[in-house]
């Protein structure tokens, strides 16, 4: 897995063009911050100052990770991964981690932009819970993004596949607002996203008076949904592998 992290890291480091995918949501972060500043609710601004940078990371990472498997396939190098004894999901996870590591600084840029606008740092009531929650968001971003990697191959996703997936992901992820603000029809799929629970725990760690029980419940649900999404992703990886190695029907969607 470490080797695939290094390989992916070298590949993305070579291209400045990748930066655009990560920075594309910063203008959106600016206008969203401006909207929130109109009423100046400190809790809302604190939530956005954490959520919007994570939104920037997610949108770039989801796009890049989503294309990893299909790019390997079209470049004729995926077959070598299947020949090796390392499971393809481990290789892909390594690539996903590299993309997340590469994307994290863009989150810092986004955070600085929001800070320059609001001139206020979020008041964190429970720093320990906050740090753990941010780590869980990063795990959630990685797992949720990896989900798209085999899906892209299975549905024959072509250019433009992510044009709606990313904005829709922003709605469901909880980065812009807590998902309990969504109508019920959207809240159900949102609760399948690990990030929605992790953002809840971030929100709780920002608020004074939150209990460890509430925070740890959100953490537990984040971990459970991550495992669930990870299992679904693993099954999809196996289907892709079956199509390539067994049935030879990878080109049939």
């Amino acid at each position, binding site marked *: 897995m470490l080797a695939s992290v290094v390989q992916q890291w070298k590949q993305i480091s070579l*291209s*400045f*063009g990748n*930066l*655009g*995918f990560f*920075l*594309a949501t*910063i*203008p*959106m972060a*600016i*206008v*969203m911050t*401006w*909207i*929130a500043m*109109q*009423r100046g*609710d400190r809790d*809302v601004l604190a939530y956005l100052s954490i959520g919007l940078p994570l939104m920037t990371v997610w949108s770039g990472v989801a796009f890049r990770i989503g294309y990893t498997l299909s790019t390997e396939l079209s470049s004729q190098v995926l077959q070598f991964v299947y020949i090796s004894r390392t499971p393809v999901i481990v290789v892909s996870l390594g690539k996903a981690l590299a993309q997340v590591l590469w994307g994290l600084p863009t989150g810092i840029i986004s955070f600085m932009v929001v800070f320059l606008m609001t001139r206020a740092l979020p008041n964190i009531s429970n720093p320990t819970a906050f740090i753990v929650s941010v780590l869980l968001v990063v795990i959630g971003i990685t797992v949720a993004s990896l989900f798209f990697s085999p899906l892209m191959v299975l*549905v024959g*996703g*072509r*250019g*433009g*596949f992510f*044009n*709606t*997936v990313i*904005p*829709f992901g*922003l*709605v469901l992820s909880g980065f*812009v*607002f*807590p998902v309990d*603000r*969504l109508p019920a029809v*959207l809240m159900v799929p949102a609760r399948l996203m690990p990030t929605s629970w992790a953002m809840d725990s971030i929100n709780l760690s920002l608020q004074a008076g939150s209990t460890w029980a509430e925070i740890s419940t959100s953490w537990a649900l984040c971990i459970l949904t991550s495992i669930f999404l990870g299992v679904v992703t693993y099954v999809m990886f196996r289907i892709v592998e079956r199509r390539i190695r067994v049935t030879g029907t990878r080109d049939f969607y």
Partner: protein
Amino acid sequence: MRHFLSQVYTTYAGLFGWLNWFSYVSTVIFRPVVLVIIYAVLGRFAGNPEAVRSYSIGIAAYSMAVIILPGITQCYTYDRSGGTLSFVFASPVNRVENYLARAVLHYPNGLLSFAATLLAAWMIVGLDFGGVDWGGFIAATLVIALSITALGEFLGTFAIVFRDWSNIQTAFVGLILILSGAIIPLDVFPAPVQELAKLLPVTNGLTSLKSTFVGNPLADTSGELVREALTGLVYVIIGYFGFRMFETAAKRRGSLEQETF
């Protein structure tokens, strides 16, 4: 005319990467709907649920840029990366005709996206169309879409010259979102930034669009609309010279398959 129409069709069908059902419908129809949902829920979360109604017109105008600009720039970059631009340069085809043909079918995509956004805003946040001066509103919409299309032609040249053209396009789309007045009013920015913003498509026309939406006659903001049209004209002309300059440079240096500048 037949040559022109043939190029309109072939450049669109062959070089528009999002021309499959999933990508097209999701990009042109669903993405604007999702944008309205995001801003509507954000407005509610931020304690200002009515705000999204005032942003809807701006979001609709912005949604045109989001579909038109990448569509046209793809048409240029795929022409080069697919190796077909060489044939264009080798042929005696009229360059103005070829240049303008690339944008034609992307224009209605922008209008469709605009309509989808307004429909979503009507359905989700109850955008009120009661007082609209329809003649002026439609004229303003058509002119804004034209100026965005002109910017797309201008950016298309970058798409064939630079490998990392998508960053330039991303920057322009971002500038339109922030500076055009789509959501953040122009008057919150310092005067020099406001002047810079007026060099972008959408900014001038949006004044007219918002004014006619609330029922004011087009005559009140006709100056802004004329300026919007002129902005587009300047972009399309500069873009054409860039297109010709690239061809000359690529032929002279033999650098068609590389970054020419």
